[in-house]
């Protein structure tokens, strides 16, 4: 009886695993085929692997450049939001001051609103600051929109940290800034790592903000570049190149996940559940 239901269970779990991997595997396969093969026989293996699709996506379709842009923007925004978010969350979690609750709720409320509500005015804010289509403009906006989640997540984390070490540091004459950077921040490292990973995923996959704020194809981020490729802005149709581009875009994220998956899961238990 148990054996039987265990078998059924495995079947269901394996079926979902297949359902999840199949489209990805198919994309990998298609990235190694010629366009004609993709259309004539979408189900067969490529006659010979066409690695040149990857080279073409990298060079001609500018996936390489999009990747670089994405790394610059996401890297910058991530660094910024981690620093500002941690500071902000720490102050709100560990200090009593008038307006503390108000600031906290105002920040966390930002998490609940779909971003595109702000799109139109945001476009003009960024435009008026002369930051349309610039790296720093995108970095600042990315960081601003990642701030609520970061604060929300780290707030709970800083609250849960023991006070004793901080007290001791104060008694030793450590400044507020010193306590934060030298005592509390290191203690919050697991939280920082997991929120960092969440932010990385979220920012890496950001589509709406760059769509509106980043109109210069030279500065396209991956999500934009791929969407543009998909609707074939390009002069010629190039499906194999598109699939190669998709895979190239997924690889860094996949790698990051495989490396950090333990922290991600630990972080989930630590933060989001609270």
């Amino acid at each position, binding site marked *: 009886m148990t054996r039987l239901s265990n078998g059924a269970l495995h079947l269901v779990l394996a079926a979902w695993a297949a359902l999840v991997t199949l489209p990805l595997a198919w994309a990998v396969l298609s990235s190694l085929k010629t366009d004609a093969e993709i259309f004539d026989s979408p189900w067969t293996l490529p006659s010979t692997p066409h690695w040149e699709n990857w080279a073409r996506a990298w060079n001609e379709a500018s996936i390489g450049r999009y990747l670089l842009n994405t790394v610059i923007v996401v890297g910058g925004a991530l660094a910024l939001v981690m620093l500002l978010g941690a500071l902000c969350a*720490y102050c709100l979690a560990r200090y009593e001051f008038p307006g503390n609750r108000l600031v906290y709720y105002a920040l966390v409320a930002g998490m609940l609103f779909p971003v595109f509500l*702000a799109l139109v005015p945001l476009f003009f804010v960024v435009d008026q600051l002369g930051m349309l289509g610039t790296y720093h403009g995108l970095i600042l906006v990315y960081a601003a929109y990642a701030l609520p989640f970061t604060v929300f997540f780290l707030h709970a984390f800083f609250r849960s940290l023991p006070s004793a070490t901080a007290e001791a540091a*104060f008694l030793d004459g450590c400044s507020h800034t010193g306590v934060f950077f030298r005592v509390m921040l290191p203690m919050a490292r697991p939280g920082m790592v997991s929120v960092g990973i969440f932010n990385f995923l979220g920012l*890496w996959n950001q*589509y709406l903000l760059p769509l509106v704020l980043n109109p210069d194809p030279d500065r396209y981020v991956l999500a934009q570049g791929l969407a543009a490729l998909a609707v074939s802005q390009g002069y010629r149709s190039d499906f194999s190149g598109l699939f190669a581009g998709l895979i190239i875009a997924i690889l860094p994220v996949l790698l990051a996940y495989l490396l950090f998956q333990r922290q991600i*899961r630990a972080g989930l238990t630590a933060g989001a559940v609270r």
Partner: protein
Amino acid sequence: MRHGKYRFLIGALAPPLLLYGVFVVSPYAQAFHLALTDWNGLSAEAGFVGLANFAELWGDPLFLAALRNNGLLLLAVPLATIALALFFAACLTGGGARRKGVRGSGLYRVVYFFPQLLSVAILGVLFQFVYTPGDGLLNGLLGAVGLDALQRSWLADPATALPAVAAVMVWSAVGFYVVLFTAAMDSIPADVVEAATLDGAGRFTLFRRITLPLVRDSVQVAYVYLGILALDGFALVQIMTVGPGGPDNATEVMGLTLYRAAFTYGEFGYAAAMGVTLFFITLTLTALALRATRSERVELA
């Protein structure tokens, strides 16, 4: 009070709050103002029209279609995602901590998370091919298992287009919540589970009586996040569907309506009114969801 507290607080809080104020709060505030004007995005000044934009919304078939579709997504996506995720999480953990989950559960946990790594843009592109009429991935799969009768132009049929979009949302979201719920279930104290098992509780009873109540908080968080996801759907629809938003508005979502009004038709005031409406809908639903799930809480003494 310790020395320099306020100086530190101001120094630490000013930059993030400034950033937040300029790029997040001020656009929202402006959206509220613009919603009361007929601004077209071109002219230097905007005429004040009061609540006319809001009145117009309720006679706009496009907006109403979008509202309906987002409503349907809101009903279906969180429910399906959470149900699937709870089921898989329970299987993987064996319903509670330290009971052995199924073999290979570590691998499943990794694999299930894959879709979370894909950006919506990539998702949209990928599923365009899954739903391709003729020999697309889905039709091919159905053909391979002898279900030819079910093959169709998934995205071109008004009856299946929205479910097809919803399925992509669920497909991509389940993995994340499996990880979330397994994490929650792993932290259920072993003795609670053991006690229940000794009492002769079966797998299902264990899940219903012990596991589910103890992961209630996680489910609540999941519901809010998924609700926000379902109220969006913009990128998926824009990349994937016929039209986009079609066929015949069957997949129109509010984000798309807003985007089109603002950026294609130059009706910025009207678009802002849509945004504000959506804002209040989201706010209300969030508050309701939090209130509804807050009621009973299981305390682990």
